[in-house]
């Protein structure tokens, strides 16, 4: 984003946030546990062809009040399955799950009344208008006509969809639908907000705007649980997160702690011709603590990137484009979810 655009964007953000609506009614401040899972398991029954499948395999985690908690993991890791169990739409098949001080096994209805949920596939009603989608949802929560009207107006403003209130959902772009889904999840002023890949399909500006809104909700005491494939999002938004793979938790901690624990401080990236990875890696062996080969890059993990770069030059790799950067969650993710590693 150019400086000018950034300036305009910030101004816009200030304008929007300045007159911000209070999106939540909670004011919990103590560090109580909002979600607590012990040995949480989801085994799907065997389908027509296959056998039973364990998508979530005895995981433990604890979400504290008013924090943003993230699930990170590759496709099929079991993130959505976990989110659906927290949302009390899919019962656990093993372990215990406490949400907002209630047991998910027998208080689903009361829990759902206090949860907002943004499912991975929007679940909007394409036959109805934007406003009608909010109306229906508000009714499901037993809200009065007046309360629904007021809340809808606020939330449409929030999602910048006010001028689309009477448009059919069918006619919305993918990003607009996502924003509507997020707005809808706030209809019941939830204490706990579940967001399954909330910003997938949003343009950068809408993403940043949503982040601001999520920060605001957090300040108001709403607990956020989210999944994402965007590492920058996880780093910015999440106070703590777990990395999942094959239905198991492979690491837990704050983004900073995860980086400190699992990867080195810096990374030397060497850009390579596709297909030459193994050969280049063999020559680079020893320049860093660990080397990872991607299709178009070598990632050399080291606490001193400049020194690794100098060593690479010594090995005659000076001809490659190189860059030294700080390690990010992306590196943690690559490490933990097991791509091919050359130590």
């Amino acid at each position, binding site marked *: 984003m150019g400086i000018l655009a950034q300036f305009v964007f910030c101004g816009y953000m200030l304008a929007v946030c300045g007159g911000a609506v209070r999106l939540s009614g909670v004011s919990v401040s103590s560090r109580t546990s909002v979600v607590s899972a012990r040995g949480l398991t989801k085994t799907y029954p065997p389908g027509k062809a296959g056998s039973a499948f364990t998508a979530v395999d005895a995981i433990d985690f604890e979400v504290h009040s008013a924090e943003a908690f993230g699930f990170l993991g590759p496709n099929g890791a079991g993130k959505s399955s976990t989110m659906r169990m927290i*949302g009390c739409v*899919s019962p656990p098949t093993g372990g215990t799950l406490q949400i907002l001080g209630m047991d998910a096994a027998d208080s*689903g209805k009361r829990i759902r009344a206090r949860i907002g949920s943004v499912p991975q596939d*929007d*679940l909007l009603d394409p036959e109805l208008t934007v406003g009608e989608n909010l109306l*229906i949802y508000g009714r499901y929560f*037993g809200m009065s006509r007046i309360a629904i009207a007021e809340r809808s107006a606020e939330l449409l403003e929030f999602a910048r969809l006010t001028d689309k209130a009477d448009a059919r959902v069918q006619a919305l772009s993918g990003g607009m639908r996502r924003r509507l889904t997020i707005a809808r999840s706030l209809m019941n002023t939830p204490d706990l907000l579940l967001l399954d890949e909330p910003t997938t399909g949003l343009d950068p500006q809408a993403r940043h705007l949503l982040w601001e809104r999520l920060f605001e909700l957090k300040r108001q005491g709403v607990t956020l649980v989210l999944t994402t494939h965007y590492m920058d999002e996880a780093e910015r938004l999440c106070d703590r997160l777990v990395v999942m793979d094959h239905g198991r938790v492979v690491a837990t901690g704050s983004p900073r702690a995860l980086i400190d624990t699992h990867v080195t401080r810096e990374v030397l990236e060497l850009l390579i011709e596709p297909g030459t990875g193994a050969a280049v890696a063999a020559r680079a062996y020893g320049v860093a603590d660990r080397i990872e080969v991607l299709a178009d890059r070598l990632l050399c993990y080291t606490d001193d990137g400049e020194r690794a770069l100098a060593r690479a030059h010594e090995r005659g790799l000076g001809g490659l484009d190189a860059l030294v950067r700080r390690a990010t969650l992306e590196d943690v993710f690559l490490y933990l979810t097991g791509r091919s590693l050359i130590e």
Partner: protein
Amino acid sequence: MQLSADGVTQAWRYWLLRYRRTWRGTIVISVANPALFLAALGFGLGKLVDHEHSAYLHGSSYLAFLAPGLLAAAMMQTAYIESAGPVHVSARRAGVYRVATATPLSPLDALLGHLLFIGFRILTSATTFAIVAWAFGAVPASRVGPLVLAATLTGLAFATPVAAWAVTVERPALLNGGFRFVIMPLYMFSGTFFAVAQLPGWLQAVARCTPLYQGVQLCRSVSLGDADPLAVVGHSSYLAVLVVGGLAVGARTFQRVLTA
């Protein structure tokens, strides 16, 4: 299994909101359809049939014989159309039941709310049909009310079992198959157009066991005014058992599919 009156009401109101967009079209269809059938078959074919003064017709005109049978069959068809496709679609990945069950509503609320709407559609279609039949002189005004009730019961006897099944269906082709291989044969061979007694013996026995036969007999005896109280109780009980059985199974299948 959880149930709340408020949840059911809100689930029902969802379907009403959607119906607001299409109700005009459905009213036109539910008037035009019986009018066309009664005109063509009742008047046209009836002229041919009435010559014979057949005992099979309960001593009435073919039009008066046909109208209640056609009504019962039409309610079966309406019930199938309203509960097979819509229930199937609503239960799939991004369907409207999935939205409802993420809120305080339970799968049972979603089922009953939808069935209330389906019942409402059957009731309104039966009413317009019966009024058209009355306008054709096929049924006296005093029997329109009881006839509508009998026809609605017939429709519901299909709606609840079909909903209970449709929620579990994964391939929509099955729903078309159900229509072609179950609903259509029932339509033809349950005494809608001719008395079952005219069928060959073994087919007669089969026909008498079908739910549509029970509905047709109920509607016809109510409409012609020659109802034997015992038979009315028999037919009604048969249909009521289907309604309740469909509900009981549906409560289970909805719970199972919507909380996978």
